[in-house]
């Protein structure tokens, strides 16, 4: 598998070149275009997980990701392009089995078949921060393709660092995190920052320049109301 990221950084897409009989797994709806030798199968499976897929599929639905994952397989060697829903960058991260990566659920776009994928609950307080409750933990070795709303950058945390929860893309699981108030009562209620996530320990934190739910909350109320 060869991964080529084009149109960076604003409207990035990932072109995945597959060998004969090779597959790539993606989030539902991410396919842009493909050569005509590629076939799609859809299941509630988890990459590398095999059986027990349904339960994992259900858990993934709770993370806000689509319940079903698509498996694209090339019969002769070909390519598939994937794009995220929002404008922004795409990053390829190769996992070698020595480090696990915890990914904010909407940042996942695609991965190779060999990776193990499991969901994690974000803790009670993240419920009140209005951000996604679930994280997807990737382990094993293989290729992972993530997307960001806006640009993507990382910070090697050594000590502690505070982030607005909506700006988190992923982090190595050597980092500890807790959700806390941004300041005193007044600042917490009126600053527009509310609850934030504090990371501590040592490890890499991937962040996105823009906050998708803040953008959604800016646009949503200006759109005509929906039926239900």
């Amino acid at each position, binding site marked *: 598998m060869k991964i080529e990221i084009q149109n960076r950084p604003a*409207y990035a897409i990932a072109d995945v070149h597959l060998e004969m009989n090779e597959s790539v797994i993606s989030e539902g709806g991410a396919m842009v275009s493909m050569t005509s030798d590629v076939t799609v199968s859809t299941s509630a499976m988890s990459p590398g997980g095999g059986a027990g897929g349904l339960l994992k599929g259900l858990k993934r639905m709770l993370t806000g990701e689509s319940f079903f994952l698509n498996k694209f397989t090339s019969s002769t060697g070909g390519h598939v392009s994937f794009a995220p829903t929002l404008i922004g960058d795409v990053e390829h991260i190769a996992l070698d089995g020595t480090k696990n990566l915890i990914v904010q659920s909407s940042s996942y776009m695609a991965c190779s078949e060999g990776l193990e994928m499991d969901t994690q609950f974000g803790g009670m307080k993240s419920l009140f921060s209005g951000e996604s409750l679930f994280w997807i933990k990737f382990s094993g070795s293989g290729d992972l393709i993530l997307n960001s709303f806006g640009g993507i950058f990382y910070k090697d945390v050594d000590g502690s660092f505070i982030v607005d929860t909506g700006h988190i893309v992923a982090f190595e699981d050597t980092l500890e995190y807790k959700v806390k108030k941004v300041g005193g009562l007044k600042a917490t209620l009126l600053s527009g920052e509310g609850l934030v996530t504090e990371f501590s320990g040592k490890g890499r934190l991937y962040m996105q320049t823009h906050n998708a739910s803040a953008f959604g909350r800016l646009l949503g109320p200006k759109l005509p109301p929906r039926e239900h």
Partner: protein
Amino acid sequence: MKYELTGKPDYALAEITLEAGETITAETGAMVAMSANMQIETKAKGGLLGGLKRMVTGESFFTNNFHPDGDAGTIKLAPQAPGDIDVLKLNGESYLMQAGAYLAHVGDVEIDSKFGGFKSFFSGEGFFLIKVSGNGTVFFNSYGGLKKVSINGSYIVDTTHIVAFNEGISYNVEAVGGLKATFLSGEGLVCRYTGEGDLWIQTRSGPQFAGWINPFRPVKKSNN
């Protein structure tokens, strides 16, 4: 007419200089800024019937004609969505475009609507495509980046990512895989192109963004 495309590819703008006597026709609402001598005239292109046909393709009923008064004048045009702008120079060829991809034109260009095929109705995309033909310059835009694909053989594209293609390529709208994949994959319908020609695809999808923003809308209050 001279033009420059600035801000490419992220938030492209078409910056156009017109000499006295030249006119540019633009999609309504596209004007960002202009020199103070530019005059605007609003028309239902092709009369009432033309205006109605434009509405079917998802374009607006009216178009604006801009021309400078006296000296040369400048105008900056932007599409509504974040994305790129590119130019087609027509010397008698015809292209088909997705609704919403047309931004402006200069010259003797005919804009018409074309039935896009029955199935495209279900993909949530416009029922019609726009056909541009004639002699002149057409400015078109994408949501996201523009990627040109030269097709020789066959190629599959998600219908919501299509921007424009040569009229000569044959295409067929179809389901992405088996029945299960069609309903559960979230991929909807794809367009299978065969033949030879150029295709422009956009790296983001409007209907997909619409689906994402939907939960942020207020809910209509029911009366019962």
